[in-house]
């Protein structure tokens, strides 16, 4: 199962690297990611029955926390592949991408998925870092796919800032290893999460708290926490929409995952709540800054990438807060946010193709123009701003109430952020969906399945959570104590 999960995308990447520009390439892309998803589901089943497991000579480690992210990743990448079929065909007709770039696009898409899955499943913190870097590098050129000046600028910023950030993370990892080998002896053993988490109590606190600073800055850059976030809006808004969807929906989750893993170690070692506090600080700052930036957006994808910053802030804040309910909420939030956000990006992609622009002032009358796009976008936004009965509300509800209990003084700021974000998003989205069809709007073929699937899932998670998911989360909460 695990091998399927990892090798399929790799092979797919190789194959598509050669034939990625054929007519049937998108179908292959879909098939590959569907196979990956099947693998992920199987793995999840395995873990659900047998509990946490090590594989490949301790090289891979699968527990409740990362397996649910793995399933999520493979699922969203599958739906994104389905979406990108129609979308990229359209882009090709518009002549925005040529053959070579199509090939490149498909290959890199699969490679990116591989990198993320490796990130999740590996047991070795060093490899985690490598995979993270790989994920960055594989998307850098996808961001600049259109070769417009802004696209290149965005990609450059993405490359440099994330490179610098990730370098810090490596330094942190080195320090971690430095502390670990005192306890576990040298060699590969000392970087294995399983061993580290067992002995975290006896790791050297001073070193670890230093290491955490570097890891925080490093992975925080990739999570897109303010003030390390500046690359994110550019990168997410300039790339092709499927990539924005996976960047916003998945990559941020992965980075947060890495951050949380490290936080657990550090907390275990220092015994204080400092790491948590740092994360809460970053989270709160991100929420506020992102919320207020939302007010002044003109580009639709840029706006939603800011909203991603905000939601990552919420999740980080919740993880930093700790405690059963907050952590539960944070896990749920990662799940529903990536579902809702990617589906929003799908609809946004179609909408901007219908109007041949990403400027929100030009996008009008989606309800009448294309029911799925219009209502999909509307409900997606309602979900993302945390209106019931969508899942985001449930997670925010848990996080907020937990905050009232543990950090009542921070609640006003949290609420301020949420309120402003709500107002800003509605202010922009309402005119886009409503009203009459403008003359320049062109009807297009849209991919119904991904949007419907995601929205239904988000809706269901809002009113009903299946028992197995619940157990997962609870075990995960136990892990992150």
């Amino acid at each position, binding site marked *: 199962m695990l091998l399927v999960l990892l090798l399929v995308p790799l092979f797919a990447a190789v194959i598509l690297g050669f034939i990625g520009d054929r007519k049937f390439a998108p179908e292959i892309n879909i098939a590959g990611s569907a196979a990956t998803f099947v693998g992920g589901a199987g793995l999840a089943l395995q873990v659900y029955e047998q509990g946490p497991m090590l594989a490949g000579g301790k090289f891979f480690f699968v527990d409740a926390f990362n397996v649910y992210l793995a399933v999520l990743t493979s699922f969203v990448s599958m739906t994104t592949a389905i979406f990108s079929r129609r979308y990229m065909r359209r882009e090709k007709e518009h002549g925005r991408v040529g053959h070579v770039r199509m090939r490149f696009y498909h290959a890199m898409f699969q490679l990116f998925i591989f990198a993320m899955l490796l990130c999740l499943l590996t047991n*070795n913190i060093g490899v985690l870092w490598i995979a993270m870097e*790989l994920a960055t590098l594989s998307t850098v050129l996808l961001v600049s796919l259109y070769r417009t*000046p802004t696209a290149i600028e*965005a990609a*450059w910023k993405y490359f440099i800032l994330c490179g*610098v950030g990730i*370098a810090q993370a490596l330094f942190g990892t080195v320090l971690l290893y430095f502390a670990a080998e005192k306890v576990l002896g040298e060699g590969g053993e000392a970087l294995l999460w399983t061993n580290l988490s067992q002995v975290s109590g006896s790791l050297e606190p001073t*070193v670890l708290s230093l290491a955490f600073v570097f890891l925080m800055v490093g992975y925080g850059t990739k999570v897109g926490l303010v003030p390390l976030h500046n690359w994110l809006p550019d990168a997410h808004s300039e790339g092709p929409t499927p990539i924005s969807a996976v960047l916003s929906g998945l990559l941020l989750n992965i980075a947060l995952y890495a951050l949380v893993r490290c936080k657990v170690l550090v907390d275990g070692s220092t015994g204080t709540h400092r790491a948590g506090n740092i994360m809460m600080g970053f989270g709160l700052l991100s929420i506020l800054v992102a919320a207020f930036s939302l007010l002044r957006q003109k580009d639709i994808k840029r706006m939603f990438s800011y909203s991603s910053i905000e939601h990552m802030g919420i999740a980080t804040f919740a993880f930093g807060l700790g405690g059963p309910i907050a952590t539960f909420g944070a896990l749920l939030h990662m799940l529903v946010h990536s579902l809702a956000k990617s589906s929003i990006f799908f609809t946004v992609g179609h909408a901007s193709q219908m109007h041949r622009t990403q400027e929100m002032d030009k996008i009008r009358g989606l309800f009448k123009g294309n029911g799925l796009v219009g209502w999909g976008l509307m409900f997606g936004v309602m979900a993302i701003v945390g209106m019931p009965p969508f899942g985001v509300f449930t997670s925010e509800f848990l996080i907020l109430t937990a905050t009232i209990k543990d950090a009542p003084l921070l609640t006003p700021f949290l609420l301020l952020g949420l309120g402003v974000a709500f107002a800003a998003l509605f202010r922009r989205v309402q005119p886009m969906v409503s009203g009459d069809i403008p003359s320049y709007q062109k009807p297009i073929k849209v991919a119904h399945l991904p949007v419907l699937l995601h929205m239904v899932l988000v809706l269901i998670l809002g009113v009903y959570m299946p028992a197995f998911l619940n157990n997962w989360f609870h075990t995960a909460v136990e892990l992150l104590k």
Partner: protein
Amino acid sequence: MDLNVAAQLNSFLAAFVLLTAFGMLVQRRMYGLVHLFTWQGFFLSINTAVVGFVAGKHHLYISSILTLSLKVILLPYILHVLIRRLKVHKEVEVVVNIPMTMMMGIALVIFSYYLMAPVTQLSTLVTRSTLAVALATVMIGLLMMITRKHAVTQIIGFLAMENGLFFAATSATYGMPLVVELGVALDILIAAFIFGIFFFHIHTTFDSLDVDQMARLKEED
């Protein structure tokens, strides 16, 4: 050779690494930068080999060779090619004037020493004292990326940071596990190709490698 000779050698090389770092900070000419970078990589690989010899860590030899081939031969070559192709071998203008930059660099060295002091207490390795130097190198690399406005110089600064990290790995812990080392090397390789491609894109779209032109995506109005 016995340990303290090795230690001296080690710290000697560390001093050289730091020196090259400073050199890059103040160097104005593009080729000069590349040369300094090459030297830094060279010292690094030597140092790695020495440490490997002293500590009897044979996988350090591999990574030493890796460093040699990558940072002393391949990357400088690529940079050379690019510079020649893109005709950017002119004076590199800086944001902050040189003495100021040097002041900051020195401040950084002190800071990182102050920061690493408690950590070095814990270490028993011969190489422990060089950890501060490693951090300083990283920081100076970052400072360099901040103070230069040229894509190539930024990349060089980035690579310098990478060097610092590598140095930290060897000096703090006698090197990371081999798999990690290989992975890192691989990543750097890919990164090298990517920025190679980038230089061309940037050059074709902005017909210069000055990053100041790339400031269109912004919020303020």
